[in-house]
């Protein structure tokens, strides 16, 4: 069947990175500011400070980045780098996002490992890390609750969308299904279902236009 398309006006950003070096530095700096999540910092830096993207472009790239495998901020950096400098830009932006934070974190892990040789410090670090672990679990749940807000406007209606989320949770936690079953099985079925719903809606809309 033919794909339905619609034209959208393209808005363009005010600026672009001058060089691969500038791209690398910008992504390194924003990644290093991203405690507990890079996305908010990325939006502020890329749209407001550098003005390499309009907010609308940012959201469009992010929506694609989120459904692809891989960390969404890494996918986002790939796409932005690719847009300005092709595949070299993609690699440079991704390298900027990962290199400095990785070095910092491995250094930190090493220090913690060394410090844990000292008896007095061990209890403190152990305690601090278990406190941080509790916070980390809470942060994930809180972020999911935030992310679930767009489901109120979901194409399938929010009760259906919410039930599907609950079903995915049950499959993972209680049924202990491997992730790939949930992704391919439930995810695949949901996508096909959404497609039929959207198609029916478009057909109704175009029937109204022609009548």
């Amino acid at each position, binding site marked *: 069947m033919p794909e339905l398309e619609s034209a959208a006006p393209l808005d363009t950003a005010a600026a672009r990175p001058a060089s691969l070096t500038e791209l690398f530095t910008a992504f390194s700096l924003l990644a290093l500011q991203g*405690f507990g999540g890079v996305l908010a910092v990325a939006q502020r830096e890329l749209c407001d400070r550098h003005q390499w993207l309009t907010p609308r472009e940012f959201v469009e790239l992010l929506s694609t980045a*989120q459904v692809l495998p891989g960390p969404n901020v*890494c996918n986002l950096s790939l796409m932005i780098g690719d847009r300005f400098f092709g595949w070299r830009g993609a690699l440079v932006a991704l390298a900027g996002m990962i290199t400095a934070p990785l070095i910092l*974190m491995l250094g930190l892990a090493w220090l913690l490992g060394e410090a844990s040789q000292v008896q007095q410090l061990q209890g403190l670090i152990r*305690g601090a*890390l278990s406190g941080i672990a509790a916070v980390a679990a809470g942060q994930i749940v*809180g972020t999911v609750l935030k992310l679930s807000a767009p489901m109120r406007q979901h194409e399938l209606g929010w009760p259906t*969308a919410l039930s599907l*989320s609950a079903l995915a949770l049950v499959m993972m936690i209680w049924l202990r299904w491997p992730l790939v079953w949930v992704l391919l099985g439930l995810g695949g079925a949901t996508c096909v279902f959404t497609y039929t719903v959207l198609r029916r809606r478009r057909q109704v809309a175009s029937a109204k236009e022609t009548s």
Partner: protein
Amino acid sequence: MSQAAPPLLMSPFMWAPEVWWSLFGHFIALSLMSIGGAITLVSDMHRRLVVNDHLLSNGDFTAAIALAQAAPGPNVLFVGLFGWYAGGLGGALISMLGIMIPSTTLALAVARWVSTRRHWLSVQAFQAGMMPVTVGLLLATGWVLAPPLATQPRALLLSVVVAVLVWRTKIRLIWLIAAGALLGALGLV
């Protein structure tokens, strides 16, 4: 996840090619399933690395995620820390390569394809259809990481309070991490 402590005997420059290959195999296999970020795969990684292969202790596993959450940068870096705890510097690098290469290649190819076809119905159906599933998988991740009620009720309470604060307020996440570290170091959670 009661003990979140760094391992006591580990050299950063350890030579462990067998461990490295094992890590590489696990992460390259998981990479293309990481829709919603590598963090959605935590329960699956726990099963593979801790329960089945004993590459990591339960404590290392939780500590790696806690540290990655505390440190700046993309969350995916916790995969590098798994590699670090299991196989030193080489383990860290090879784990990052494993988790990144497949998803990066696919992301770049698909992003180019989608950018010219984003008004297609099938593209929109995929984007909308995956959303509830991703939310459910992320909740499962939080569930696995949450401290157990039986042994750590106060830590679980902290998790719940943090979840509500992150959801409802714009509080800087780093303050929450700092508070968690302080409460933990004082032995209160």
